[in-house]
């Protein structure tokens, strides 16, 4: 296990997440895809903290993990908010199809 494989994993997760976010019609599925993208970024944090050690840019391996932990907490809070919105939308519309939610059209 080395830095490159970690980054490959992260890139794959990010791509899958982006694909899902753009193509899934269900709002919850899109949110899950979004979560994948966020986690891809977090893996990068941890990977650089683990393998980039001894570098002038990352003198302390634990700091990167700590950032990742904070980010996980913040993302969890965001997701709670997002799910609340999803519930509100569902109550109003009785469905969760993103393509039908086009209130921003010009």
């Amino acid at each position, binding site marked *: 296990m080395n830095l490159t494989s970690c980054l490959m994993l992260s890139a794959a997760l990010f791509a899958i997440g982006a694909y899902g976010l753009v193509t899934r019609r269900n709002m919850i599925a899109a949110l899950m895809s979004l979560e994948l993208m966020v986690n891809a970024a977090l893996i990068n944090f941890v990977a650089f903290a683990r393998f980039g050690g001894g570098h002038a840019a990352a003198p302390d391996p634990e700091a990167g993990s700590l950032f990742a932990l904070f980010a996980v907490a913040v993302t969890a809070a965001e997701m709670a908010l997002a799910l609340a919105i999803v519930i509100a939308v569902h109550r109003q519309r009785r469905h969760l199809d993103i393509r039908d939610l*086009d209130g*921003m059209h010009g």
Partner: protein
Amino acid sequence: MGDSTVIGPLGENMGLIGYGILAFPLLSFLINGLWLGRKSPRASAWTAAALMGLTLALAVLLANAYRGIVLANPGAFPARAALLWEHTWMSFGLGTDSVLAAKAGFLLDPISVMMVFVISCISFLVHVYSIGYMHDDKSAGRFFPLLSFFTFAMLGMVVSGNLIQTFFFWELVGVASYLLIGFWYAKPSAVAASKKAFILTRLADAFFLIGMLVVGISAGGFGFDRLNSPEAAAALNHTVGAGFLTFNLLTVGTLGIYMGAWGKSAMFPFHVWLPDAMEGPTPVSSLIHSATMVVAGVFLTARLFPLFSAAAHTLRVVECTGAFTAVFAAAIACTQTDLKRILAFSTLSQLGLMMFALGTGAGAYPASMFHIFTHAFFKCLLFLSAGVVIHAIHSNDVRDAGGMRKALPRTYWATLIAVLAISGIWPFSGFFSKEEILHAAFASGHYGAFLAGLCTSGLTAFYMSRYFFLVFHGTRGFHGAYAGSAAAGAAGHGGKDPDAHAHPVREGLLMTLPILILAVPSALIGYFSKGFFMRAVLPSGSGTAEAGGEALAHGGAAWLPAVATVLALTGVAVSWYWYGMKKNGPAFPNGKAPAWYRILSNKFYIDELYLFLAKRVGARLVAAPAAWVERRIVNGAFDWVTGAIKRMAFVQSLAQSGQVQLYIAVALLGLYLLSRFAGLAF
């Protein structure tokens, strides 16, 4: 004025007097305009009058201090001028001494002190009179703040020490007169008159502004001490331009400034606004005609007199316009039937006298200022008494008056004094100032202007006594059928009140008191102040009082006063024959007025000519094509541009589908492209 001294030897208290003189009228404007006028018109009237009384008291103090400190000290003040204070309001570029520094100052010199006294005195009396005059007017609460503001503007104009401040207050005077002439804004003729006055004077002021900038920038400053110095005239006196389009900067600059004075003082052909300005309330006419507004033009010409006298052409123009207007207006006044219009044309004629006096040179300068001074009192009196008559008969037409002698005895006697004064009968005030003007014009060899002045004297005596006989003698309304009336139909027939005869005629104390007070200076002030004017009121830069006095020892033609008096008496006698004794004007064959009479009573058809020029020539040749260009080309271009922007925006809005996932995809694509162009490997 090269030695203007700021405060120093004058002491701080005098500076305070200067602030007070400007602050009290402004205070009256603010208090009454913002608050008291709406709350209680009566209280606002008394407050305004009280504040003007304070201003008058300060003006007297100022004049006294000026005499005691400046005039008594020719060593310290060789030019008899001192700056009480001066603040730099804003300056452009080079610090406080830069050419374009706008300063606000309080200049003391003979004419500014004289004008401050005249303005505050007249304005106070007019305020008091207005309390009575506006008693039944619902909009009196709006009247007094404006009247005070008018006074403030004029005071600020006369005490100005530089051309920029003069111009500011000059425009304020214009605005105030516009608001007051159109005071009864529900009356279409009043609105038309106020617009006429404002637009005509604004037209002239545009030239004033150009002239002011030419003169100020070339002379290197706008202060009067600078502009009136010989160096300024020398700096200006050179020719610019090329080919056939060459002109002298001094001539062009001073002519431009004089154009402003020309419009403000309503010299021919700008005179048309002044008779129409009668649409305002009578106290306003009184103020406009005696102390504010129209006198501003003569004052400005006098203020810049040393500069003007370096420009021979300009001085010539001043003389010609003045002399022509004097005779022209006096001739028209002989046939008018509107009380206030007669007086308005008389003002035009008297302004012409003052103006041409300035045009004849330095010798007539004190005489011209002297005439402003005496004229202010008797003209104010005449207007105020005309107001009493109008109040009494509810009409502006002399043919509805008559026999007022018994009904309005106090007004009758006061008016008699003013009529004698304006006609130049010894020993009333007008005699002295008019005689000085004629003397100076004769002594300086301007015989044309001198003859115009003599003519004017005779005509003045004629039309003023005609006015007097028509209004006060005979019996009520008996003039209605006199021969001339048929021709005068066009000459503004005041609104007749069918019940006029039912109203009791009365002289209120508040209205007669100012008139009676004014009768005193109208009678006596000429005799008592002649010495002061001849000794102290000299164009700045003419050296000490003694030297100036020598310059004024003109070849005293002893026959002159005699000739002028005989002419005046002839005028009175002719008008007595036509209007006093026979009571029905000149008898024309077969009852029809001849052509010359109709031309006079229609004011030489100048108004009609202007209307023709404006409606036919102006509207068709200028306004109509301009409107087409405006509508089709200017507005069309704008419409096209806005339409194009709207269409483009519509096309762009098609991209906004509202599909969030599309937006995300585009954002990701953008991120990709960005990273590619940023040189990152992907």
